[in-house]
């Protein structure tokens, strides 16, 4: 019988065939889908995030690891759904109004999914009211705002203002993107800032932990 640590290693190495095979074998041996996700797949993506932060791996390796996990989740999600098991935390993510850039947002949502967040991706050019509506509808624990351009930073400020004004006590706001800094995040009242996709998982976990 394979070990969950074998699955973790396969995900971290981006080996999708091995990841799927090990998932099937673990299921056949009686390991539950939730344990496979939480003790096999998620730790693999955590390794990826840590290696990415330290520049030991780069975006290509991160993408193939996320793809491996996604393939395994295709097997597991129907079982999780039928058992009524959902991720503990829900995140909304999007690129702010006026900005059509998407790769940064896509990497963050990939890593958040890898950390077992349910992620609702609103796409690009998202107006403040759409973030707000989605946060309310999905009872989001986290709202992530992305911006690539200096010219769209004001839209980020406006979105944070709208979300704060709505008074969502169980929602934290996190921002990121090429021109964004911690100073800007503090200035506009965002709850968190991450400089890269690896750090984004750490910050997200800290923010949702603060809700408890």
């Amino acid at each position, binding site marked *: 019988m394979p070990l969950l640590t074998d699955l973790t290693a396969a995900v971290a190495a981006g080996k999708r065939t091995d990841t799927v095979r090990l998932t099937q074998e673990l299921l056949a041996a009686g390991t539950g889908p939730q344990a496979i996700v939480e003790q096999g797949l998620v730790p693999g993506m955590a390794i990826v995030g840590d290696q990415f932060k330290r520049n030991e791996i780069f*975006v*290509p390796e991160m993408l*193939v690891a996320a793809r491996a996990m996604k393939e395994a989740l295709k097997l597991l999600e129907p079982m999780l759904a039928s058992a009524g098991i959902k991720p503990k935390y829900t995140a909304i993510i999007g690129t702010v109004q006026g900005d059509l850039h998407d790769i940064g947002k896509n990497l963050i949502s990939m890593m958040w999914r890898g950390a077992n967040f349910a992620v609702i991706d609103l796409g690009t050019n998202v107006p403040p009211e759409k973030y707000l509506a989605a946060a309310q509808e999905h009872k989001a624990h986290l709202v992530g705002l992305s911006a690539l351009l*200096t*010219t769209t930073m004001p839209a980020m400020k406006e979105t944070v203002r709208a979300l704060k004004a709505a008074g969502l006590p169980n929602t934290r706001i996190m921002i990121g993107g090429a021109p964004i*800094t911690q100073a800007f995040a503090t200035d506009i009242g965002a709850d968190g800032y991450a400089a890269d*996709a690896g750090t984004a998982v750490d910050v997200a976990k800290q923010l949702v932990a603060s809700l408890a």
Partner: protein
Amino acid sequence: MTGCERVNRMFARQDQDRIPRQDTFWPETITRWQREGLQWDHHDALRLLEADFAGLCWSWPPVFPGQRELLREDAETETVRDAWGGIVRTWKGRSGTPEHVGFGCDSRAIWEKTYRPAMLAAPNQVDVQMAAVRYADARKLGQWTHLSGVEGFEALRKILGDETCLMAMVDDPEWIRDVVAVHTEVVLRSWQSVLDQGVKPDGLWIYGDMAFNHATMCSPAMYRELVWPFHKQMADWAHERGMKVIYHTDGRVSGVLDLYIQAGFDCLQPIEAKAGMDIRQFAPTHGDRLAMIGNIDVMKMATNDLGLIEEEIRTKFAAGMATRGYAYHSDHSVPPQVSWDTYKAIIGMVERYGYY
């Protein structure tokens, strides 16, 4: 001293009267400045700056020249299938990075059956007559002239999309090498067509954003294996023709500076401050082998705080000028938060601190 002499002396690390100058502006910045006193367009701002560089042509070879199929539109954006076979959503009447909705080439089979032969067979898209006219005009003005175009990494992202190309770097590196090789061959052919008109540019200005604010998109080893040989091919082609090479990339590229030097790049631009790049760090370590253009932080410009901006310019000019291999440019494009009065003050600071 003419701009051409000045830039050539920058490359030779010889004394100049002042540092060379160039800049780039977002279209919205020019619109704002026109309301605040700029008479015409970005050329007026560059004239006031006394910019020294002149581009002659732009080469980003499309796979399907002329293709632009409107798929849908709304009040703000339109979505089209473009000349690279991709589906992109762009703003109407506004600048900004487009959203890549989809890509036509998402497998090696499609590349080999359709895209590769189409790229190689596509007619040259560079306007060689216009390049010759611009060359003659720039020579009269004494400017440093360059051919411009896109290198292989940027071409990969345009043709395959980020996710496909970056994952294929792991899954199928030979495919990636082939795409970059074909693109490089077509770009060099297009530049050669300009030279064949009797134009003798001073250099190449190659564009390829291969990094973001954290690091390069791929590892230095992967860059060295898959893209670097074709960077070197471009640099060798230029050097064989007596031209210098400026490489443009945004993002944090501190991990590959030595590879750039080994590829034969003579200069790096724009050295993005908000990605953690700082010539006060890199000029002492690499400035003797790699000239540097830019690094003046647009985020500081955007504050319109003249004291903050002056400190930025004074200290970075001092670091760059110590190598004799430095030219002024913002670290990306001047954003519309910068007032025209502020930019005129910036030109004054460039004048004050930029003389040797």
